[in-house]
């Protein structure tokens, strides 16, 4: 049996864990086990965490399906990904979103990006959020028949849509 990580060397470290009634197994060569810090049996919970076992199972299941889905943008298939452990293009993250979700959960601290956002996109998000807030206020104003306020909000929304940069800056 080959190591699940490097797929090169013989797996000599075999770990298994029962979770939610399902048995999960990891087979690693000594080097990969050491690199992942799982050669110490007491540290096993970590193996689950680092390797994203759920993901490995899902990937295996996906690969054995008859008609293999391919990324519409770059043509990468699930088994291409399994072989190289690399995705083909940014769109692959949408194409393989389902199987990636489990894998990302195992690999990382969270499942949502926290941190730097490119400046252009940040503006986009702020404008979106502002528009949604204004829209809600507008509906609320109409509901209580405050037409003066509703007219003001409608103008603000129009202005924001036409010139997002100026409104956010102001």
């Amino acid at each position, binding site marked *: 049996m080959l190591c699940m990580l490097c797929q090169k060397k013989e797996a000599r470290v075999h770990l298994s864990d029962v979770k939610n009634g399902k048995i999960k197994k990891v087979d690693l060569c000594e080097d990969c086990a050491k690199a992942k810090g799982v050669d110490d049996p007491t540290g096993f919970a970590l193996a689950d965490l*680092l390797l994203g076992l759920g993901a490995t199972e899902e990937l295996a299941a996906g690969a054995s399906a008859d008609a293999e889905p391919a990324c519409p*943008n770059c043509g990468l298939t699930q088994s291409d990904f399994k072989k190289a452990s*690399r995705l083909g293009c*940014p769109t692959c993250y949408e194409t393989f979103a389902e199987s990636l979700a489990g894998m990302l959960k195992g690999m*990382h601290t969270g499942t*949502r*990006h926290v941190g*730097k956002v490119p400046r252009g996109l940040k503006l986009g998000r702020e404008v979106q959020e502002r528009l949604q807030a204004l829209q809600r206020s507008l509906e609320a104003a109409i509901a209580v028949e405050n037409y003066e306020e509703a007219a003001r909000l409608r103008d603000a929304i129009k202005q924001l849509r036409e010139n997002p940069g100026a409104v956010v800056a102001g």
Partner: protein
Amino acid sequence: MKLLEFLSPPTQAAQRGGPADRIVMSSRVRLARNLAGFAFPGWAKKAERLRVCQLLRDAVERQPQMREGFAAALDDLSALDKQILVERHLISREHAAKGAGSAIVLSRDERLCVMINEEDHLRMQALLPGCQLKEAWQAIDELDTGLEQDLDYAFSHTLGYLTACPTNVGTGIRVSAMLHLPALVLDEQITQIIQAVNKLGLAVRGLYGEGTEALGNVFQVSNQRTLGESEAEIVERLSKVVAQIIEHEENARARLLENRPKMVLNHIGRAYGILANAHSVSSKEAINLLSLLRLGVDLGLLPDVRRSLVDELFMLAQPGHLQLRHAEKLSADERDILRADMLREALREVRRPLASPPTPPVDKPPAP
């Protein structure tokens, strides 16, 4: 300009110092970025790779930080050039293996280096001497912010910066510190430390990063997780862990001198003996012995030697740097002989290590 004319000579490069550099040899922050609408380099066809490479090279070279820098396509660099770049930790071994369609751009001060079409379209790093993780993050953050004005990055609001390998998605950041930990190795505590660091979700690697062995008691500690934590949080966490490892190493040095002085003196004395007298030394042996010599310098046992000399020899002992000093192509055996000659010459005037540690001990970390 040729790469070898551009790079600072080893003597000069070894003199760059920074905070806590007796243990932290360097700090690095690297960001992975990709362009929207293009396949990742490993999957892209050659024509697309070449187009992306040119586009990115132009954008990177336009940045003010890269003024008077060095830029080259990988196929325009010789095997020796690439080896030197790897030995200086400026590019990865993976990047050195690339040819047409990949490039590097290096800043004049050699602190910023951008690899184009490595595993991702852009792998940009700031590499600073000593413990300067925050400074390195700031430097690379600025370069990235400059680049994003010109480039349309592949970014998702839920998953962050999209990378070829899902292990890098999110912030795309890798923060790492290169640590010299001879006392933790001599005191046989290093395995425990590595396991403890692993449990915090951080990786410990060897001298040349992923998949390399810890030659010369040099270890790289870096974050592995990139999604769900901000860059600042990751830098902060790594800084804390590095500060703790420094403390453990300092404690181990003090304890070894206190409890097992002969063992320490024996290792350092033998290292000096071989380095100053051998006639054939492999690069692996040289690096391991130089690590002990560096420890001797830190402990005040070698009053004639400055740490920068050891760091310079560390660099010069490596195959590429050694080859550089000789016009003809050297075989491994020839290199071992010339390496020994170089080391004997460098240590000719250096008196042998003291027979006991100086009092008061110099092995006190400098006040912060």
